[in-house]
């Protein structure tokens, strides 16, 4: 399972001012816990996404730190209070240093 993790985000495209919207995210990732052993008894090295951040117009408003106890293909939902139109950036940071990103536009009217 070494496919590149693919993020999926569900966020409304429009919102009223001061409306609290729910954002749901999912990313394909095996979240190898570092606790499992392979058939020959070797511990399989840990490789998880350790941090998820959600920002709007460059300002981070939600962050999740994940431990190995988070399930594979991690799901995360959270909320955002809409104030102005702009763009969300969602970023997942992997143990190996890579970052996976997804963007979504929101128009507030």
């Amino acid at each position: 399972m070494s496919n590149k993790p693919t993020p999926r985000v569900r966020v409304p495209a429009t919102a009223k001012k001061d409306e609290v919207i729910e954002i749901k995210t999912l990313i394909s990732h095996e979240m190898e816990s570092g606790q499992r052993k392979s058939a020959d008894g070797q511990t399989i090295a840990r490789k998880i996404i350790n941090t998820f951040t959600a920002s709007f117009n460059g300002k981070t408003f939600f962050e999740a730190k994940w431990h190995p106890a988070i399930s594979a293909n991690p799901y995360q939902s959270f909320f955002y209070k809409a104030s102005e139109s702009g763009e969300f950036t969602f970023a997942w940071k992997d143990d190996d240093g890579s970052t996976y990103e997804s963007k979504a536009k929101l128009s507030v009217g």
Partner: protein
Amino acid sequence: MARKAATTRRETLKATAIGAFALAIAPRLALADAASVDAEIKKLYGDKKPAEGKIKLDVPQIAENGLVVPINVEVESAMSAADHVKTVHVFADGNPLPGIASFTFTPESGKAAASTRMRLAQTQNIICLAEMSDGKLYSAKAQVKVTIGGCGG
């Protein structure tokens, strides 16, 4: 000659038995407990005692599959600049490691609520700790009965 062979065989058997026992007991010993969760909390907040309430911790009472257990945490708060929830930590007292996740909120979050999915190795308690912007701590606890553990054993 024959005697030497017998000794070797006995030793081999003994070694195998010890090995099997060690394998069987090792995963049990590796699990965290309530004390390690307390130690984690102490590392973060020292001796500050959390109060009850404010937190709505939503986990299933019985999880059939320990690999994917949904968890939803919501903390009661106005989420204004002066009064909001800063951080919510989630711990488990029966996993190999006590930490599950930590969520950081801001007033822009609008609502201090988050859901994710976690792995649970066995039946255990989920402990949730919320830190407010004024420094107050709240905690909540819930037990999840796990039918099939999620530790890839």
